[in-house]
């Protein structure tokens, strides 16, 4: 005679599920914080004279208290800033044959703009009453200009995009020789070093 299979008690299933529920409640982090990373300049001893930068190697972005942009003494819309910055950084105005000649630049090579990307400095000047939203938007556009140029060079030299590889390494999803890739990343960074300077903000009305 066959016996009926005994019923399995599922009462403790709820307890197990609760345990899981509490575990996830404690450990989940839904969203990772992302942002624009920056290295602040250390405080210089006051005796040291600031380095001299030629007028043509300086790209001045001025933001006033009403969030308007003044780029190289011209009023500009935010959407045009990226292109203007790219044109400035990529100009490569130093004459060919000189030690400062930039052989990878594809810009206009205008002698009145930057000599090479290593010399080119972007200076952002904010008013104290500029909104933080605008400040970040400007920083974002300028970083985008650098990323565009770095992507272009890394694609030309190695066949991959600088920003994508950088992201893959940071997320740990990069497969292959990480040290060799990092070396190449640094080489690209050297071609277009991030030279963003920030002046002390002016007080209102100055």
């Amino acid at each position, binding site marked *: 005679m066959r016996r009926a299979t005994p019923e399995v008690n599922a009462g403790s299933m709820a307890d197990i599920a609760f345990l899981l529920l509490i575990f996830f409640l404690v450990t989940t982090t839904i969203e990772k914080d992302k942002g624009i990373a920056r290295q602040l300049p250390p405080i210089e001893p006051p005796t040291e004279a600031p380095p001299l930068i030629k007028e043509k190697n300086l790209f001045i972005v001025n933001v006033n208290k009403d969030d308007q942009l003044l780029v190289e003494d011209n009023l500009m819309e935010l959407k045009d800033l990226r292109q203007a910055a790219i044109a400035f950084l990529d100009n490569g105005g130093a004459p060919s044959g000189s030690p400062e000649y930039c052989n990878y630049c594809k810009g206009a090579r205008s002698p009145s703009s930057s000599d090479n990307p290593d010399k080119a400095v972007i200076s952002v000047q904010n008013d104290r009453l500029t909104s933080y939203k605008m400040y970040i938007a400007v920083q974002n556009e300028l970083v985008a200009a650098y990323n565009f140029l770095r992507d272009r060079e890394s694609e030309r030299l190695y066949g991959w995009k600088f920003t994508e590889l950088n992201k893959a390494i940071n*997320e740990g999803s990069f497969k292959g020789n990480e040290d060799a890739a990092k070396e190449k990343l640094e080489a690209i960074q050297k071609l277009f070093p991030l030279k963003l300077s920030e002046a002390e903000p002016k007080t209102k009305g100055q």
Partner: protein
Amino acid sequence: MSKFKKKKGGELPHISTASLPDIVFMLLFFFMVVTVLRDTNLLVQNQLPKADQVEKLKKDRAVYIYAGKPSSRYQEVFGTEGRIQIGDKYTSIENIGLALEEARRKLLPELQDKVYVALKVDGETNTGLVSDIKQVLRERNLLKIIYITTPGTELSN
């Protein structure tokens, strides 16, 4: 003979608890999807600006600074001027350094030298407040900062 005969005595019917795990699992999934963990209680408005050229922040080596107007329920007491929050309380510009030092000591010892200062600043704040913070950070030699943003671009609106 009646059709509506009581089957048994006044015994209570057995309630099946077999579906209880299903209900709990549903709750589990609901919470897994919607939870956003907040380790600090926000005292300021925090509508972060948008940016798309971003890097990820390594949370284990981050110290947070919040800034913005006080939240609506605190505005009666603290006004509407932009304020700085570190940990669970408002901090004045002069005390940022001490508050940061306190927050930094809570990190793992081997990461304390690689500390990142994460600035979570409301989009409507004045840049002046942010540059005051940055000046203090420079004096404290905390030079690595990251402006936390939300995905998107300011250009699209």
